[in-house]
Structures are given as C-alpha cells and as structure tokens.
C-alpha cells in the first residue's frame, strides 16, 4: 500500500513537472482532427505538406494538443474519415479541406451536430452557417488580380487565350472575376478551354491554341502547373518572344522564375496551400489561446512581382 502510494505520488509529480509552467487548461487534452484530400496534384501536395508542418509544430509547442490527420482520395473516403474521427478518435475539433464541398456538406453537418468545433478550409459548403471558422483563399480575387494585371499590360488591347481548370465552382468564380476585370478594355479572349490544372493538359491545349491562332499576346493559365505545360508548348513552337503566361497559386518553380525576371513569367498570383496551416493554427488557438477565433479568415490572392517574390518563396515545400 505504501509502495503504491509512493508510486502514485511519483507519477503525479512527474506529470506535474512535465506540464508545469503551462496554463491551467493543461489538465485537459484536446484532439483536433485534420482531414485533407490526398496529394493528387501539386497544390494538394502542398496542402498535405503544410498540414503536417503545422501539426508537427503545434504538437511540440502544446503537449495537450493531439492531432489526427487523414488524407482521402475521394469524397466517400473523406466522409468515412469523419465518422471515424468522431466515433473512435473522439475529436474536439475538425479542420477540413473538403475535396468536394457539396458531397461533404451533410457529413460535416453531422460532425457539427455532435458538438464539435468545425473549421472549413478553402471551399464553401453548400449550406451556410455550419462551420465555426472559415479559412479560405480568395478565388474571385485570384481572377481579379490577374485580370487587372492583363488590363494594365494591354491598354491598347491584345489577344489572349485562357486555360481554365476543372469545371467546378472555384474555376467559375476565378474566370468570372477575371472577365469582369478585363471587361471594358480592348482585350480580346480568343478562346478558353479546360486544362484541368494539369501540366500535360496545359501542354496539349496550348499546342492546339498555337496552331489555331497566329497571333497570341498573352496566356492566362490560372494555375502554375498548367502554365509550365503551356510554356513548354510555346517554346516548342518557337514563339516564346511573342507572348507571356500568367499562372497562379504560387508554385515554387513559378515564383523562382518571377524572382529571376523570366520574360515569359512576368508575375504570379498567390493562392497559397499554406492556408491549411493557418486554419490549423487558428483552430488550436481556440483551445490554447483563449482568444475568439470564430468567423471568416480570407487569405488574399496577392500579385507576386519580381520585387516581392522572395516573400512567397518556400524552397522546402514540395509545391
């Protein structure tokens, strides 16, 4: 009995030592579930990287925070991940970047109804008011920033082609804002076509545009992967001095080219996958910071020029 008591005392002392110096809230540990799409293209690869980086940092800083990270290739898998997180991992909060927000609205709503704090990243759910915190990039902003740049470069008009992403709402928001920004100028959109935010498709679609139009002054590719494919096609056709290309999202290669003053990549427009890290950090603050974190946090889509490119360059990120 005595021995047992000593043991119990020693244990509590040890625990006390470990957590001492940290606040009263330390008695309770919190589990935060993080659900992101699996790395199926460059940008989601960046999302996974920044999610892991944020989790590693927060686990080190706050021993009373635990994280459950799950990556899902499709909405079905992501919905099952959420069920597991609630029923077997007993999460207190969920940070989710829904691969397909429409399909995941009701699974996320169930998590909310189970009394969990919900943070939604990047994509709007089809029903308002479910999430406690919304952290997102500025999709219309991405289109607008790019459009304004085109308008500034072509005061006297120019012929451009547009390589779109996938036929989903994000793409439409970007394209609509772009069109709004160049409306009223003399810029002529010769054609626009889906290139699926993908290098190979960027290459293919651009090759066809090059044979279709003898005079193209610039290309809006909306995405850096697509832009790299398009640039390769333009070089192959030997027309690299006739036009420049604007991508988007801030891939490190693209930022590097902007930094180096590459003529074909004069600017980039940010849409940083690091936003998932912002969302995880803010959600953690809800439990350890004692500050209000409910609301909307929109991360700007900035114009990245040769002057400020260094600020957006993450050489260690896979994206």
């Amino acid at each position, binding site marked *: 009995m005595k021995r047992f008591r000593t043991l119990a005392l020693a244990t509590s002392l040890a625990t006390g030592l470990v957590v001492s110096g940290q606040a009263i809230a330390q008695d309770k540990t919190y589990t935060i579930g993080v659900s992101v799409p699996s790395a199926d293209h460059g940008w989601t690869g*960046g999302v996974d990287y920044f999610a892991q980086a944020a989790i590693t940092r927060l686990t080190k800083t706050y021993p009373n925070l635990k994280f459950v990270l799950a990556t899902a290739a499709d909405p079905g898998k992501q919905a099952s991940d959420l069920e597991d997180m609630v029923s077997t991992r007993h999460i207190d909060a969920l940070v989710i970047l829904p691969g397909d927000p429409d399909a995941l609205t009701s699974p996320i709503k169930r998590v909310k109804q189970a009394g969990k704090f919900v943070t939604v990243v990047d994509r709007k759910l089809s029903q308002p008011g479910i999430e406690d915190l919304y952290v997102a990039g500025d999709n219309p902003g991405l289109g607008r920033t790019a459009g304004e740049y085109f308008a500034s470069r072509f005061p006297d008009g120019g012929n451009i082609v547009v390589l779109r992403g996938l036929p989903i709402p994000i793409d439409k928001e970007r394209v609509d804002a772009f069109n709004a920004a160049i409306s009223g100028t003399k810029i002529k959109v010769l054609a626009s076509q889906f290139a699926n935010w993908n290098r*190979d498709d960027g290459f293919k679609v651009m*090759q066809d545009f090059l044979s279709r139009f003898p005079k193209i002054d610039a290309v809006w590719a909306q995405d850096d992967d697509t832009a790299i494919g398009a640039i390769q096609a333009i070089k192959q056709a030997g027309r690299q001095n006739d036009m420049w290309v604007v991508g988007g999202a801030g891939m490190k290669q693209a930022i590097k080219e902007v930094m180096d003053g590459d003529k074909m990549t004069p600017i980039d427009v940010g849409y940083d996958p690091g936003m998932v890290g912002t969302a995880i950090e803010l959600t953690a603050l809800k439990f350890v910071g004692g500050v209000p974190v409910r609301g909307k946090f929109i991360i700007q889509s900035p114009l990245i020029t040769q002057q400020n490119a260094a600020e957006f360059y993450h050489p260690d990120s896979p994206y």
Partner: protein
Amino acid sequence: MSATETTLTKREPARRWSPNLRVLGPLLALILLVILGASLNGNFLSPSNITNVLARSSFIGIIAVGATFVITSGGLDLSVGSMAAFLAGVMIIVINALVPRFGTGWSVILIGMAAGVALGGAAGLGNGLLVTRGRIEAFIVTLGTMGIFRSLVTFLANGGTLSLNFDVMDTYNPVYYGSVLGLPVPIIVFAVVAILGDIAMRRMPFGRHCAAIGSNEQVARYSAIHVDTVRLLTYVLQGVLVAVATLLYVPRLGSASSATGVLWELEAIAAVIIGGTTLRGGYGRVWGTVIGVIILSLIDNILNLTNIVSPYLNGAFQGVIIILAVLLQRSRRANQ
C-alpha cells in the same frame, strides 16, 4: 506450323476483299473526323498540327500497342498509367542522383533509360506472375498495382513534383522535341513499335498464341501452347512498352507527379477497343489500335481548335464519337 501458315495466307485475301468493318470501321471514323476537322479549321491539316497530335499520342499509342497483346490474350492491365508515372519518377531520381558524379551528358541519360526499362519489365513481370502463378484475376491484380504505383510516385515526390535537373533536360530534350529527316522522334518510335507489334501479332507464333488463349484457354492448352508463359510475356511486354513511352515522356515536361498518367489506362483500353480488338480477347489488331489512338487524340485536338460546343460538353462529344466508332464495327458482326 506450315499448315497454319497456309490457312492464314489463304484466308488473308478473302478477308481483304470482303468489306471488313472491324478494320474499315475505325478507318472510316478516322476519315470522317479528318474531314470534320479540316472543314472546321484551316490549320487542322497544317504539318505542325498533325505532327503535334501524332507526337503527343505516341505515349498512349506505345502503351496501347502493349495493351493490344494483353487484351487479345484475354487479360487486362489497369496499372499502365500509374506505372508510367512511377517509372518517370524513378528515372528522374536516378538521373538527378547521377549528375553530380557523371555530369550532364548522355551517359547519365542512358543509365536512367536503362533503369526505366528494367524497372518497367520487372513491374510487368510482377503483374504477370500474380496473374499466372498467383491465379488472381488480372483486373484485381492490376487494380492493386495501379494503387501501389500511384502511391509510390506520390511518396517519391513527397506529394509534389519531381523535376529533372535543368542541364540534363537540355541534353535530353531532343528525344521528344527533336526530329530525324523532318519526322519528330516520338512519331518514329511509335511507328517502329507499331510495325514490330503488327508483325508480332499477325506473322509470329506469339501473336497467334495470344489470340488462341484469348478465344479459348482450354483449347489453347490442349494445343500445347504454354498458356502461362505466353500470358506472362504479354504483361512483361506491356511493362517494357510503358517504359519506352516513359523514355519519351520524361523529356517533354521534365517532371513527374501524382497527376502524371492519370486515366492513361482507360485511354489505352479505349483505343484498343475502338481499333477493333475484342475486349473479351481472341482477336487483336495492332493497326486498329494505332487508328484508335489517333482518333482519340484527334477528337481532343478538334475540340480545342474550334468552339462548336460548350467546353462543358467536350466529354459528351468525346463519348459520342467513341461509341459511334465502335458501333461502326459492331454492325459487321450483325451482318455475319
């Protein structure tokens, strides 16, 4: 053997003279597409457009030649797209790793190529052994390896993109962008693979054995055909051809990521079927496959060259043309 050959030569002319829609169907579809394309855009028949289309269909084309053998012998390989991405990733890693020691010359690229081909053969061997020795359905085996290769390339790239060393890229570039006597290299490689494939399919025992196994495995076994060996070889051949396609793919964009080669398996299978090969096995045409591949790329090209349909409907348009092409050959079976 000689008996088979005489029957074959006897049958050949008869086939050629009767209207064989299984062969003519895809050709007809191709001709219709070319006419459609030419009438919609003046640049459609320009040499640069034609060479672009042919050069970029060479990847799927070379893979589809391999798929023709696999499908003819009653098998299926769903792993080819992921395998191509994985092989491209490994080649890039190998080449980048060798650069500091051996420089940026051809020797490094040749080692990378050899590694790619060896790995491709090994991957095909793995698929083949699981199908023949493991007695697992080809659909299941290759569905499994499809996931494995896709994850491996994602893992190797750390979720991002693997990029080829830029200096090596300059040396390697001509393999995709170069041309010999005015013909781009990928088109030449595709043509050579297709001609060799056609010879193997129609003039060599290997092709006949594939067809025999695909049409009736038991009968083939009783005819002293080494069913398992032939079947295994079709998967190895498929793996090697995926590697050959990858050798051409790497210099194009100098990168591999988890988005590389997505859905190539379906495109290759579609090309094989459009070309008149039976999905159940037993009958295969390499030339048909080549036409199938060109049809698929042309549909894409024509849609990009025009604005006749809303971009939202491109997929539907593609689907309609694919179904029409196959319908043209099915009408022949009804006539028989």
